[in-house]
């Protein structure tokens, strides 16, 4: 299958002995001019890249308090060293969160602190050489920006922020990552990450309507660009056709239909994902986010709802108000934006949906908390609602639900291994190895509770699991959308 070995799933998740440099070869394809230019980045490594990088770091230190505090505050206590799934799966010590940070911190100390200028060796400061840039490129593309380490650091040091900053610096000197940057370009040019043009999208949605009609005998609508709809649904473009994503989209449509909520997708903002966050670029993140505001204004909707997507929900929940707000033109009775799970959960609570749990009786389900939902956002009114609401939905539509081990879910959840702009085939080894802790936990519930399906609410998680489950002896179709479960259980009566 590949030129690397899938890690062995053992009885317990072990903290591996260090194997220095075993992942230093792992690097995604470098971006080219055609992908760099639309984002406002130089097309190739600029001549005075060292100076540009040092200056860019200086600028970020002044404009991002978190980065400055994180650079100074680490005491090398080691609490985070065994918390990263990429370290646990690869044994490469550079994948320990603090060691990853130190690749930037060493340069920070060398050029921006007194002791680093005077006694570099003493304080672990290092010159920004080509070799260091190489290591940056390798190891800052071995971080899925999942924030698991930030939960455990006594100072809340968030390696995700350090990774974003370093990727931003690398883009500034012209060493960007092809995968993320190409996709951002597509979102700008065509409106979504898959590069699905408007007419193709319209066709797809029409096809969905026919399919659902065939299945249920009910006319469920999947509308596009419908002015005056109540809800603008913004969902990851994977939902438009790929399995298991599309089954989730079918589910959203059924929920809206049964609740009698008029809704629409937008061809202008036909993508919830915002890869700007992955590359740490405020400008690009803002540009992508603005499309959603524009679409909402243009279509005259009253609410914005996001489909199942982890990092998109982070950007939506935590950043959208800052980047593209204020949203005072929307209905103030609803939070802006809302997650589709919040909508469905509310409807279930109010008894507005008729659900037949037995429709899912052939499934024994567990739930994978996606990192950006778990550690960078919320659902509902109370902290931790992001853990409760999806589970309550699943329990409302399934008779058999089992959680994975407590230290692998909730705020301690392990990344699927493909987040943060790493969901690309050129990083397959990393993705497979990084999935180890989750696969370990899945194996446990499989053996103990006979779990057959892993439900998730993130497009990246779903794609990643479809790809890596077979490496660990599972079936690729064991991963399902939460709204696929809803879709199967919802009783569709023709509306009177």
């Amino acid at each position, binding site marked *: 299958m590949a030129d690397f070995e899938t890690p062995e799933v053992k009885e317990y998740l072990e903290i591996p002995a*260090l194997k220095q440099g075993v992942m230093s070869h792992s690097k995604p394809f470098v971006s080219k001019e055609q992908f760099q230019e639309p984002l406002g980045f130089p097309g190739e490594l600029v001549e005075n890249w060292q100076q540009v990088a040092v200056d860019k770091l200086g600028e970020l230190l002044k404009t991002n308090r978190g980065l*400055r505090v994180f650079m100074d505050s680490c005491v090398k206590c080691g609490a985070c060293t065994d918390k990263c799934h990429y370290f646990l799966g690869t044994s490469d010590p550079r994948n320990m969160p603090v060691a990853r940070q130190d690749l930037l911190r060493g340069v920070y100390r060398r050029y921006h602190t007194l002791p680093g200028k005077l006694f570099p060796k003493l304080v672990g400061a290092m010159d920004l050489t080509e070799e260091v840039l190489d290591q940056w490129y390798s190891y800052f593309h071995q971080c899925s920006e999942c924030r698991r380490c930030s939960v455990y650091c006594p100072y809340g040091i968030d390696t995700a922020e350090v990774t974003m900053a370093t990727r931003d610096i690398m883009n500034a000197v012209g060493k960007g990552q092809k995968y993320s940057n190409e996709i951002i370009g597509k979102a700008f040019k065509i409106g979504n990450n898959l590069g699905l043009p408007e007419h193709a999208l319209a066709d797809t949605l029409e096809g969905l309507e026919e399919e659902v009609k065939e299945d249920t005998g009910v006319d469920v609508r999947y509308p596009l660009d419908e002015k005056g709809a109540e809800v603008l649904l913004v969902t990851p473009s994977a939902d438009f056709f790929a399995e298991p994503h599309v089954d989730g989209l079918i589910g959203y449509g059924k929920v809206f239909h049964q609740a009698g909520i008029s809704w629409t997708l937008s061809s202008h903002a036909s993508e919830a994902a915002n890869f700007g966050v992955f590359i740490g670029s*405020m400008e690009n993140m803002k540009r992508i986010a603005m499309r959603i505001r524009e679409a909402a204004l243009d279509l005259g909707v009253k609410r914005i709802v996001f489909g199942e997507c982890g990092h998109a929900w982070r950007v939506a929940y935590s950043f959208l108000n800052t980047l593209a707000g204020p949203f005072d033109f929307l209905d103030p009775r609803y939070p802006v934006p809302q997650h589709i799970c919040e909508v469905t959960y509310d409807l279930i609570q109010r008894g507005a949906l008729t659900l037949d749990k037995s429709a899912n009786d052939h499934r024994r389900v567990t739930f994978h908390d996606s990192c950006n939902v778990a550690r960078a956002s919320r659902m509902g009114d109370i902290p931790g609602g992001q853990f409760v609401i999806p589970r309550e939905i699943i329990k409302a539509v399934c008779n058999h639900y089992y959680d994975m081990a407590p230290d692998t879910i909730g705020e301690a959840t392990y990344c699927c291994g493909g987040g943060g702009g790493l969901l690309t085939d050129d990083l397959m080894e990393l993705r497979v190895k990084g999935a180890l802790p989750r696969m370990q936990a899945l194996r446990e519930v499989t053996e103990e509770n006979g779990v057959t399906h892993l439900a998730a609410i993130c497009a990246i998680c779903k794609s990643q699991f479809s790809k890596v489950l077979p490496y660990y002896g599972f079936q690729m179709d064991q991963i399902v959308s939460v709204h696929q479960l809803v879709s199967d259980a919802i009783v569709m009566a023709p509306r009177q």
Partner: protein
Amino acid sequence: MSFATVFFALLFYAATAILLIGVGMRIVQYARAPAPLKIPTTPAPTTRSGVALRMASEVVFFHSLFKANKWIWILGWAFHLGLLLVLLRHLRYFTEPVWTWVVLIQPFGIYAGFAMLAGLLGLWARRLFVERIRYISSPSDHLMLILLIAIAASGLAMKYIWHTDITAVKMYFLGLMRFEFHPLPTEPLLMVHLLLVALLMIIFPISKLLHAPGLFFSPTRNQADDSRERRHVTWVSAAEKPAAQTER
């Protein structure tokens, strides 16, 4: 006036100035840098008072560290709590008359000295023998522990083995606080203890000891999770403002 008297007087004036000004400048830098986005590590409190509680549980109990690793937590906590009590105990050398509560904690201060030393030795052992922590350690990380261990050990040694004329030491520091010079005893151990403490004060603002003020400015811990309810905007310059602000 002996050389030591003058030398240590100047040293402590300088060290105090460097500590206060250095840390003060760093705090200003932290405070001035904008936090452009809401990035609390969730689940996070949704209100300011909730955030105060979260911060308190971090500062007082090292809550996140507790979740992470019980060994580092117990050793680190013993060291910090010990240090706090020892520092408070030392207040008696800088006050006359000595405040009652400082008198009351004196015996605890002594145990605290041992707890502090034990914690430090444990932390150093981990740094030396746990492969992962050894890997992330620079020479300065070892030296910092050695420095603290030496300070604690020299202090305890003065208490239990080679006593110094503590009354004279107190006179000396009380004097310094009023810019008067009294003679400082010159036992070598005292010299070492004072020298190392001054060194610690001097490197504070340029070392990882900045984690102390840093924690209070850490956005993943000190931000409330209220991004949908309250629009968070700290744009640095007008040029960075989102179009939405000018548009509507």
